[in-house]
């Protein structure tokens, strides 16, 4: 049985997920993800047209609290755990590169 997804699709999904896969990983994942999706085929044959989707066991509602100032995490303590911080902020490499 052919895999329900192709190697190119797996490469594309890896890009979306910000993962770099080796050739070997691409091959393995294409086959393994295909197996899981094949197992999920038992669902695709069901007629679920009238069934409501459930994303959460008890349904989510907005929870609000009184608008009063409370202590929050100390900025310096949080930044101390960051790979790089600068002037009270998280620091990252350049975001805007040169135009391609």
């Amino acid at each position, binding site marked *: 049985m052919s895999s329900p997804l192709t190697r190119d699709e797996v490469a594309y999904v890896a890009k979306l997920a910000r993962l770099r896969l080796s050739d070997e990983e691409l091959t393995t994942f294409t086959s393994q993800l295909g197996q899981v999706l094949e197992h999920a085929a038992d669902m695709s044959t069901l007629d679920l047209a009238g069934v409501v989707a459930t994303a959460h066991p008890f349904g989510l509602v907005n929870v609000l609290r009184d608008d009063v100032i409370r202590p929050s995490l100390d900025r310096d303590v949080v930044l101390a*755990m960051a790979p790089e911080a600068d002037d009270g902020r998280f620091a990252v490499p350049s975001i805007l590169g040169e135009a391609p």
Partner: protein
Amino acid sequence: MRSALAIAADVREGVLSAATTTATALGAIHARNEELNVFLHVDDEAALALAASIDDRIARGEVLGPLAGVPIAIKDNLCQTGVPTTCSSKILDGWRPPYNATVIDRLLAAGAVPVGKTNLDEFAMGSSTENSAFGPTRNPLDPTRVPGGSSGGSAAAVAADMTPLSIGSDTGGSIRQPAALCGIVGMKPTYGLVSRYGLIAFASSLDQIGPFAKTVADAALLLEVLAGHDPMDSTSLREPSPSLLSHVDDGVAGKRIGIVKELYEGADESVIEAVMGAVAVLREAGATIVELSIPELRLGLSAYYLIAPAEASSNLARFDGVRFGLRVDAPDVTAMMEATRTAGFGAEVKRRIMLGTYALSAGYFDAYYGQALKVRTLTIDAFARAYREVDVLIGATTPGVAFEFGTKTKDPMAMYLNDVFTIPTNLAGDPAVSVPFGTGEAGLPIGVQLLGPGRSEAQLFAAARVLEIADGRS
């Protein structure tokens, strides 16, 4: 090892010091941790200092909480201020959380002594702890076998008599499955009963924190401490912690218990025998047994392995080298994120992120994720119908006893099938407990699973207690 109940009673009365109980636990940990790889982090000094402060408070006449002086092991996906928290992943290398998970605060308020952080499958994804970046945990009952997972370290800590209690998290069976494989009690509570604040999220609509213990009473005691409303978790139930311990000896007389074909079919012969034996014990104890078939539960595995990865792919997007843990340098930010995630995540985590990203991507959303959410509705409705007929459901926790290392790592589907009996409960948000009952291959323990509707923890513990007594475990 003595029960947490007995230890806390003695510490509160001042006849046993927290310093002694803590030193005993640390001794037991250091005696076997190198062999079993149960704990990723133990801080003797901090634990002994906390124990000393508990003893001081008792000496001053303070009345301490229900876990006074009880050493406890914490799964390493729970944040504890200043204590390394890794999720067994290289991507959180070196990170120390700036805050406590709510359950840690509750444990400290109850007088417990957290002694260390336990090993797990990376980001709680797995059923054997073989997916840990820091090596697998070994089953204390047979070190050639897995302890189960993902909370394998926490289960092993209790099974090896290192600590009388531990905490795990259960997204698709990650408390109940290792409890079964290690021969101890483990419960996944009703969704929302225990605050998830400070639990590093895997699949937020399925994750729930729960207790491990040697006895049903100890598990009930610990869950009472963990449960209760928390404003820091928007999904936390708005109700006080339930009374559990006072009901553990309520028995099952007059209860209706359904034995569910889909929750044991396909399991090893010895596991099916254990379930049937448990059913006979419950009938003898006064329960009415009803045979049920709930075919919708067969679809649970397929739905779960789309829903959980979908949620995980979103939750794990935060690990990008910006705010915590690992960063692999690269000239621009996108390349940095890609290099960090590629180096930091292990194979199973990548597999699930990929699966989830695919299931949520344009063109496939309806066919996979959308369909899975509808199947989730079918599962919830099917359980609800069953609970109109019976009070409790019974089945196996796992298809077999603890397996040997490496036997399922090559084939993800084979590993996933280990959770086939535990997953449906998570989809419904209902509670379930695994209690040891009988033994199988090589004399290894078997777990029987008891399931109930939301907020039925007291009833589940009472039924589990009947089995515990019949199995000769106090």
